[in-house]
C-alpha cells in the first residue's frame, strides 16, 4: 500500500487514485449535469458549454459567470469573478507544497493545473497514508474531468426534459460532497478551533468582504487561527 519516499508519477498510483474517486465521480457527474442545464438556460451553445467545462474545470466559478452571459460579453467582470471564485485553489496548491517540491521541471506546474477540492482531498488522503506518488492526483483528476464533461453534455441535452434541477436536490450535490469529505479530514476535536473560525469568518458582512472573496478570506482566517493555536507556547 505504502511506497515511502518514492516521488514518482506511476500508472499504478493513477489507477489507485481513479478507484478512490468513485464517490467523487458521482458528485462531479451530477454537478456537471446541473451546469449543463444552467448553461442551456442562458443560451450558451453546446460547444461553448463543453469548452468551458473542459478548460476551466471549476464548477463554482462556471455557475457564477452564467448570469453575466449576454452580448456584449462583459469580459473584465467575467474574468475577475472567475479569478476571485477560484483564488481558493491557490491555497489548495500551496497546502501540497511539502509534496510537490520534490518534483522538478514542469511536473508541479502541470499537477497544480488539475487542482480542485475533490481531487485534492483524494490526494491528501493518500499522502496521509504515506503515499508519495503524484499519480494519485492525476488518476483522480482524469476520472473527475471525464465524468464532469459527460455530465455537462448529458445535462445540456436533457435540460428541456429535466426542468428545475432543485427538484432533485441537484443544486446541493457539490456542497454535500464537500461536507462528506470533511468527515475524512477530521483529525479530532482540536480541529474545531480552525474549522469554527473559518465557518464564523464566512459571516463577515458583504460590505467588508465582497461575496466572491468570502471563501478565500474565511479559509485564510481558519488556517491562521489553526496555525496560531498550534505554534503558541
Amino acid at each position, binding site marked *: 500500500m505504502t511506497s515511502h519516499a518514492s516521488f514518482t508519477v506511476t500508472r499504478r498510483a493513477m489507477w489507485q487514485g481513479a478507484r478512490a474517486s468513485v*464517490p467523487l465521480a458521482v458528485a462531479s457527474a451530477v454537478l456537471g449535469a446541473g451546469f449543463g442545464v444552467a448553461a442551456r438556460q442562458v443560451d450558451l*451553445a453546446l460547444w*461553448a458549454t463543453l*469548452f468551458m467545462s473542459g478548460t*476551466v474545470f471549476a464548477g463554482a466559478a462556471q455557475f457564477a459567470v452564467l448570469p453575466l452571459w*449576454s*452580448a*456584449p*460579453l462583459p*469580459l473584465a467582470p*467575467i474574468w475577475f469573478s*472567475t479569478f476571485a471564485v*477560484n*483564488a*481558493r*485553489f*491557490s*491555497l*489548495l*496548491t*500551496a*497546502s501540497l507544497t511539502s509534496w*510537490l*517540491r520534490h518534483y522538478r521541471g514542469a511536473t*508541479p*506546474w502541470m499537477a*497544480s*493545473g488539475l*487542482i480542485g*477540492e475533490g481531487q485534492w*482531498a483524494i490526494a491528501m488522503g493518500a499522502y496521509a497514508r504515506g503515499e508519495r506518488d503524484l499519480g494519485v492526483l492525476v488518476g483522480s483528476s482524469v476520472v473527475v474531468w471525464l465524468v464532469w464533461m459527460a455530465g455537462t453534455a448529458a445535462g445540456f441535452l436533457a435540460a428541456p426534459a429535466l426542468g428545475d434541477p432543485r427538484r*432533485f*436536490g441537484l*443544486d*446541493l450535490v*457539490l*456542497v*454535500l460532497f464537500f*461536507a*462528506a469529505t470533511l*468527515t*475524512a*479530514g477530521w483529525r479530532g476535536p482540536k*480541529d474545531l478551533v*480552525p*474549522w469554527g473560525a*473559518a*465557518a464564523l469568518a*464566512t*459571516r463577515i458582512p458583504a460590505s467588508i468582504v465582497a461575496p466572491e472573496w468570502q*471563501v478565500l478570506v*474565511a*479559509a*485564510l482566517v*481558519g*488556517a491562521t487561527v*489553526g*496555525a*496560531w493555536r*498550534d505554534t503558541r507556547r
Partner: protein
Amino acid sequence: MTPDASSTALAIGGMAVVTYVARAGGLVVARVLPSTPFITAFLKHLGTSVIVALVVATLGKGDGPGYLAAAVTVGIAAIGRPTTALLAGMAVAALIRAL
C-alpha cells in the same frame, strides 16, 4: 442577445487562463513564504479550511433543506459510506422540497 462565437471563445479562454493562474499561483505563494513553524502549520490547515468555508458559505446562501441534507450526509459519511451519504442527502432535500 446571444453573444457571437468569437467573443464567447475569448471569454472562456480568458476564464481558463485566470483559473490556471489561480491554481498554479499556489506554487509561487508557497515558494515566497518563509518556512517557519507558523507557516508550516498554516499550510497544513489551509486545505480543510477552504472546504469548511465553502460548505458553510454555500449552505448559508441556500434554504433550510440544505442544512438538513448536509447533516444527513455528514452522519452517513462518518460511518464510511460517502456515495450513499451523498445520494441520501440529495434525496432528503428533494423529498422536503416536494412536500
